[in-house]
């Protein structure tokens, strides 16, 4: 490891240092705004380290980590999402009036660090390390508020289920290593493609790895925890969980599959295709009858992962581009949606039930308009980022002539439009007796405005992002 390696690792190091500094600052004095500022500055510092790292990219730092444009793009995305989470959480934590609100930020930083490691990992060891770093912090984040049992229940469920799934993942990795003698993605792929492994060991092992990763992605039938955890977690954490945690696992999977030279094998296509279709169906059907916005978004996220998998199954360059585009659009939309949920919370409870949104257009027109934009984007209506994302997924599906998946995608999109619109219709309904509204704090307001701009901007003028993603996709493949 030399100086250049350290520069390449700069963003990760800055993020780790930021976590430590934040923790120490809490030891010196408890002050929520100061801690949030330090954590935010840490994220900014990590982001500032990105260009320097980009100059030395692509670079393999040890066997574990590879810094290339792909990784840096994802790291940037995670940093931005973490920043948004911290801004939103500032509002959320203040409202809750809990004691000990400061450590929240450390956890966000650590979880983001794990996610960034995942995006850079080229080795099963760093894959697992990143995954666990990201998850362990999330357990605490989900159960962070101590008022009421719902948060604790959500945290505990996530802990136990994620533990079980991690066990499968780890066992699968162990089997892979024991049979092929390689843990790096490249070594593993080379050994596998050379036919050195014992099929009876390697394939079940990979199935277990897929199962473990599917849990993190919340792909049906590993999705059952999603509604409970989404609902139980504080809204900013839910946004973080939905975006960063899933995006990181997808990034690592993309790397793994690129190393494997795509997903040409029929068994892989069938497995992921089946996962995609069940996710879409299960997610959308479940979402139809939800009475809570957070649960509804949770179910819809299951469906969206199904759409992403359709893109994932295309040949490598298209898949990279499509998945990344989808993720960016999904990040923007989801963060904005949960941002609205966060700032709408009043008193001692979150705005979760659909009834809380009745007549929102007449009470909070801007927030309602933004939420509508988010829902339309999730439904894939044109001029929002979500449309192009969905279009990418469809184009990826058609490029490989996977008609069954394309049809499933189209049908499910139609199905999903119904429940998204139900929320919009509820918001447009006559307002009930108006509850006193909390002012939107400045930080959150600015953030939501930026997200709204992105939501529409990406839908109208996608060229810049496309060019960026294309450059990174070629870097990886």
């Amino acid at each position, binding site marked *: 490891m030399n100086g250049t390696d350290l520069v390449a690792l700069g963003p990760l190091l800055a993020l780790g240092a930021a976590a430590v500094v934040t923790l120490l600052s809490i030891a010196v004095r408890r002050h929520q705004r100061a801690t949030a500022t330090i954590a935010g500055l840490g994220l900014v510092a990590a982001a500032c380290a990105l260009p320097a790292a980009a100059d030395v990219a692509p670079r393999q730092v040890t066997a574990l980590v590879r810094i290339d444009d792909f990784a840096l793009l994802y790291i940037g995305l995670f940093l931005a999402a973490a920043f948004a989470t911290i801004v939103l959480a500032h509002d959320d934590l203040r409202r809750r009036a*809990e004691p000990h609100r400061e450590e929240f930020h450390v956890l966000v930083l650590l979880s983001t660090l794990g996610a960034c490691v995942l995006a850079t990992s080229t080795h099963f060891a760093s894959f697992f390390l990143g995954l666990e770093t990201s998850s362990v912090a999330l357990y605490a984040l989900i159960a962070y508020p101590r008022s009421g049992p719902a948060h604790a229940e959500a945290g505990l469920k996530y802990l136990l289920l994620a533990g079980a799934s991690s066990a499968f993942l780890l066992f699968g990795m162990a089997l892979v290593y024991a049979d092929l003698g390689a843990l790096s993605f490249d070594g593993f792929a080379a050994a596998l493609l050379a036919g050195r492994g014992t099929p009876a*060991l390697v394939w079940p092992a990979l*199935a277990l790895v897929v199962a*473990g990763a599917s849990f993190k992605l919340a792909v049906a039938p590993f999705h059952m925890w999603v509604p409970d955890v989404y609902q139980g977690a504080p809204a900013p954490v839910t946004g973080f969980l939905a975006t960063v945690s899933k995006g990181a696992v997808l990034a690592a999977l993309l790397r793994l599959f690129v190393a494997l030279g795509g997903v040409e094998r029929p*068994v892989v296509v069938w*497995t992921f295709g089946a996962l995609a279709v069940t996710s879409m169906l299960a997610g959308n059907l*479940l979402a139809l009858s939800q009475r809570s916005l957070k649960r509804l978004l949770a179910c819809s996220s299951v469906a969206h992962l199904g759409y992403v998998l359709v893109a994932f199954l295309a040949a490598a360059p298209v898949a990279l581009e499509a998945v990344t585009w989808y993720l960016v659009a999904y990040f923007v939309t989801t963060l904005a949606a949960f941002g609205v949920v966060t700032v709408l919370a009043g008193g001692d409870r979150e705005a979760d039930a659909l009834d809380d949104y009745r007549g929102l257009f007449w009470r909070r027109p801007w927030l309602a308009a933004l939420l509508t934009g988010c829902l339309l984007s999730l439904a894939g*209506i044109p001029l929002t980022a979500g449309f*192009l994302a969905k279009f990418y997924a469809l184009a990826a599906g058609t490029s490989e002539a996977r008609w069954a998946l394309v049809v499933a995608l189209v049908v499910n999109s139609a199905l999903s439009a119904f429940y998204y619109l139900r929320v919009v*219709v509820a918001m447009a309904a006559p307002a009930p007796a108006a509850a006193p509204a909390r002012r939107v704090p400045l930080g959150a307001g600015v953030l939501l405005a930026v997200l709204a701009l992105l939501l529409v901007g990406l839908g109208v003028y996608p060229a810049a992002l496309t060019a960026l993603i294309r450059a990174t996709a070629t870097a990886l493949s």
Partner: protein
Amino acid sequence: MSLFALLLLPFAGSLLTAVLPTRARTALAACAGLVAAVAAARVVSLYPQIRDGGVIRETVSWVPSLGLDLTLRVDGFAWMFALLVTVIGALVCLYARYYMSPDDPVARFYAFFLAFMGAMLGVVFSGNLVQLVVFWELTSVVSFLLIGYWHHHVDARRGARMALTVTGAGGLALLGGVLVLGHIVGSYDLDVVLGSGALIRSHALYPVALVLVVVGALTKSAQFPFHFWLPRAMAAPTPVSAYLHSATMVKAGVFLLARLWPVLSGTEWWFWLLCGAGASTLLLGAFIAMFQNDLKRVLAFSTISHLGLITLLFGLNSPLAAVAGVFHIMNHATFKASLFMAAGIVDHETGTRDIRRLNGLMRSMPRTGTLALVASGAMAGVPLLNGFLSKEMFFAEAVFLTAHPTVEVGLPLLATLAGVFAVVYSLRFGYEIFFGEPSTDLPRHPEEPPGWMLKPVELLVVACLVVGVAPSISIGPLLAAAARPVVGGDLPEYHLAVWHGFGAPLVMSLLAIVGGVVGYLWLRSHQRSGRLNETPFFERFNGRRLFESGLVTATRLARRALRLVSSRRLQAQMFTIIGVAILLALLAARGVPLVWGDRERLPASHEFVLLWVIGMVCAVGAAVMAKFHRLVATTLMGGAGLVTALTFLWFSAPDLALTQLVVEVVTTILFLLGLRWLPMRLHDPSRRTTMRDRVRRGRDLLLAVGAGAGLAALSYALLTRPAPQSISPFFLDRALPEGGGTNVVNVMLVDFRAFDTIGEITVLGAVALTVYALLRRFRPPAESIGRPQQQRVLPSDVVTDLVKPRATGERAGGYMMVPATIARLLLPFSFVVAAHFLLRGHNEPGGGFVAGLVVAIAYLTQYVFSGTRWAEGRAHLLPPRWIAVGLLLAATTGLGAVAVGYPFLTSHTAHFTLPLVGEVHLPSAMFFDLGVFAVVVGATLLILTALAHQSIRAHRPPAPNKRTEAS
């Protein structure tokens, strides 16, 4: 003004009107009308460029990677549509100024209205199929907003939602179709697609693309079986209906069919799909329209019927029919917009739209009545009006079509029948409400509307008349320009004239008119006597019910799916995850038999098998008991740990065994100490185990056994194979020469992997501090403080220490005297043992970690037997200092190597001879190990202290209040 500017103009106007004061009706109408008029003027000025089949193209790059460019393309057909969109838009703006009530938020109306106009222009101008879909969906969304404009009406909201669901879903189908087309052609550019007709029609995916595109078009144009949303959309304000549901949005569907006519038509698929849908819609819509009593619903069903006619015309695969279709699009837009406006005026002036209540309005509003009469004449197909011309062309096509005999006979019949129906509902609209005895019970006294409100209607009706009387002069060139691109460049022979000579088409027209009048009189007499007020027969199975029952079914299915695929119970969630993971693994292993490897096996002995059976029983027992009895579970876990230690010993790994043993002891003791403070298990005796529970548990057991067996089989298969590459030889070979010790494990810890060890002991210290910090404020609940159950049941008069221990002051002097004494005696011995382990660690089993744990165990026993107060009263343990000293020592050792020029943590082994002792083996790693020792002692003791101190704290108040805890 470029095309892009023209396209952006309505959107800009939309933004402008959105920010104007919401009640400024005149200003808003003027602004919107001006925008529409300017756009219309610009469209008109494009005419010379497209008149002779010219095409205007403008392109801006959007997502080039996906073949998505913003391309605007105007040919004659698009131009004609743009003209309809802008001119009728401008007229409706004027009309709406008078129609909308002063209480309505008019700014919103005009903003949406102009946005819709922009979206519609976008559809029409699209030179790229994907872009067309984008604007297509945009029209759906904006129409949702417009239909739901009076959002306080539940009808409006529902109607809007239904319209959007149907047309939005259709748009998705269209998107799918467009993607398939793009896949076939390799481009989404309209010009390229239009040039690849033969390629597309011969492609295997042609039916897929066709069905998807047609579904998109049929939903938009409200064609059977998707026609049901249009009548519900009549909840919109009438200007919206006049614009969207006559001239523009519903025409988008047929626009698409015409647009792709050169590419997709000419096949059996096309013929049957479109003729089937078109013919059934034509007849069905006209039939239902006859029985409607709401003015707007009559018009809605008539629109459905007329769109069916247009669809049918395009479906006939004949260029002449296609020209007729284009012609009818124009005619229908003109007369239907005026009719909607007339209906709106009637509604506005009388306060009702019920045909049964409206009568004899001619007397009070003669101008409106005349206009409505003429327009409904056009709708009915009366000669000298524009509707007659296109209908005549249709009749001609129906008669001269060469196809299957049933079609040849059936189609003219069907056409005539639909003509009859059309006359009937036109009479009901135009004649019934304006003639006869004037109604007296109307909500408002009817009078003529303001002159400007009638102007748009007048203009449109005049257009109907002019076209109807002198078609070849007025509309001829326009029609030619518009129809040429549709049929692919070469116009067929046709004559636009009122008089074609006496032939079959004219006979059909006359039959339709006569039959219609007779039918109207017949129907009226029935309705006057209270019959036939509802649509017979068809009311029963219409698409709306299908739609709604579909939704209900979907909801019910979702509920069932909810129960099946989602559960809030952790048990079910875990079951699914494990089950599916195992299933996936099984599927992956399908077809590849698991065979054992050929590595040499160690002989099994009975003792060892027995040992493992015991260990497994302990482990399973611990898992089962964890729910029912924590103490037993902890003990059993210790048993399993012990078997593990013995296994290590069995395979000649005494160092591992030793470590495992002491770790087991420490963790068990700490567990036990911690258990003391956990609340009692809540046991509900009323909850009985049901059959269901037993089944569930049996199922879980099966899954657990299956999963365990599977993983075990995989592990076994792995163990029977030679490991591909192992790192153990590396360490075994180098431990002595490079690390200077023969205990490989210890050498790895303090030398090869010393860096890891430093990290680990740091973590250990941090964990201990965390435990301490977490438990610092913990107050045990009251029920954990009292005496244990067993001691509480004793009678109070028994006074010995043994049976009533709390009576004595200090535990170490009481019933614990004997074990406490033994434990105290053990303390110095354990120090000696620890020192022994520490010193010989480099070469023999032992080391700092084990030594630290031994000391920790010795202290733990003191706490357990003698009590916290006693132990701490006699020894100053200061665990944090142990940790600090240990860490410092380890770090200093490492830095020492740096000081003499070696990398961090390099070890050096010194051998020298001391008198009496003999040769001494003193590696520098010894100091490092000492650091490990200190950290382990400190960390364990700190955790211990944290737990033990609970007993000397005040317990929580008996009635805990959640609020106080949170604050």
